[in-house]
């Protein structure tokens, strides 16, 4: 890659430039700042679309009453039951039970608090899905 070929396609890295290694006129390698590259933006966008799709599916499931609001906060943080279990120290089967609305509703405050503090939320916030999809963790 020559210096002139270092791509400057603004995208996912916002205004942060990243370093690429490129060959100067004299054949020496130098560090060149890059604002991004279209193929990377495409691939990264694809991954985010996937995350958003999972969130939308989860919201529908919660509205249908098949999953608890905990599921929403879990997928917004790009977690699954296994990872959430790692973070909370609960067994995975327990986390999976908590994803059921009936079970979640009956949980002791101490258990809910554990989830809430992981996500930096209050228990009240944990018990609902924000009206608009929360853009905090998303793009």
């Amino acid at each position, binding site marked *: 890659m020559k210096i002139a070929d270092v791509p400057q396609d603004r995208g996912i890295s916002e205004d942060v430039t990243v*370093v690429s290694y490129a060959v100067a006129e004299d054949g020496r*390698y130098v*560090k060149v700042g*890059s604002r991004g590259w279209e193929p*990377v933006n495409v691939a990264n966008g694809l991954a985010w679309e*996937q995350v958003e799709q999972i969130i939308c599916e989860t919201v529908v499931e919660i509205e249908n009453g098949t999953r608890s609001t905990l599921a929403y906060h879990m997928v917004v943080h790009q977690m699954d039951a296994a*990872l959430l279990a790692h973070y909370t120290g609960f067994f995975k089967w327990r986390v999976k039970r908590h994803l059921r609305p009936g079970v979640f509703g009956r949980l002791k405050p101490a258990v809910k608090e554990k989830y809430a503090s992981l996500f930096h939320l209050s228990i009240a916030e944990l018990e609902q899905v924000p009206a608009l999809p929360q853009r905090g963790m998303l793009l």
Partner: protein
Amino acid sequence: MREFCHEQTAHCESGTLANLLKFQGLDISEPMAFGLGQGLFFAYVPFIRLNKLPLVTYRSTPGRLLEQTSRGLGLDLQMRKFRDQNESMRVLDNLVDQGIPVGLQTGIFWLPYIPRAYRFHFNAHNIVVYGREGDVYRVSDPVMPFTTTIARSDLQAARFARGALAPKGKLYYFTDGAASVSLADGVRQSLVYVAKQMCRVPFFLIGVRGMRFLAGRLEKWPQKLGDANARLHLGQVIRMQEEIGTGGAGFRLLYAAFLQECEEVLHDPCMGEFSSRLTEIGDQWRSFAAMAARICKDRRRDEDSFTHCGQLIRGCADREEQLFQDILAHLQA
């Protein structure tokens, strides 16, 4: 009192290392740290899944670079992991207050200053903490252009991220004492090691064999997985190859820069030639990424297809095999 100097680099681990070494008075560039640490690699490991997508890696295991480079330079790298979060923060505070810059392994998801698009659950991101005022820490993140600050609670969360490659509060720093080794010996050893990893490991997932295996699998993705899922898989390969921290072309350009530096270290003009060859291979990897992205976005040109992508990867594999065999033959002659 020495000042810690932040310099932006392509890759977090080699960058952290180069910046820490500079503080120790050793002027080692990022490519040199990367090459000496035997950072270049390739493996396709379909049974390890990240977000349900197969693992493709263009680099060695996280953490290896640190150990290999320090060993190559004969430096004493202190490394600790913790069970107790409070103790880990106490130890960090203690070191930082003595003026010692400390390298940390962190989970990128929990670092607030990273652009949102990069914040996935990836737990092997390296940063340096080089000072603090109360509960605000000064951070040098080598992939960021400038230094920044982070709150204690955020830093603690990032140091104790969970899941694959959990950092467990890992911190590392160099104790004083300059290195007294010949760079040339270390470099030669590392060159041989990487070349052997790439073309002599008799296992089908590693090195050029891994590339060919990936090429074969990739060609079948559309039939096996369906169009949408095949694109997700392809997107994952591009991200592992090109996204932040690789310096472009899956570390190939970074390693080519290292080969170029070897020309002077070893007083060997052949190294410059090897470097140019790897640059060309890197450019071919980038052509693959560009084509793959067009497929992902459904902006195919006539020649774009999964089969053609596979062929490009095979082309890279053939050329890398030739290159690394030539390097081995040259060094072991």
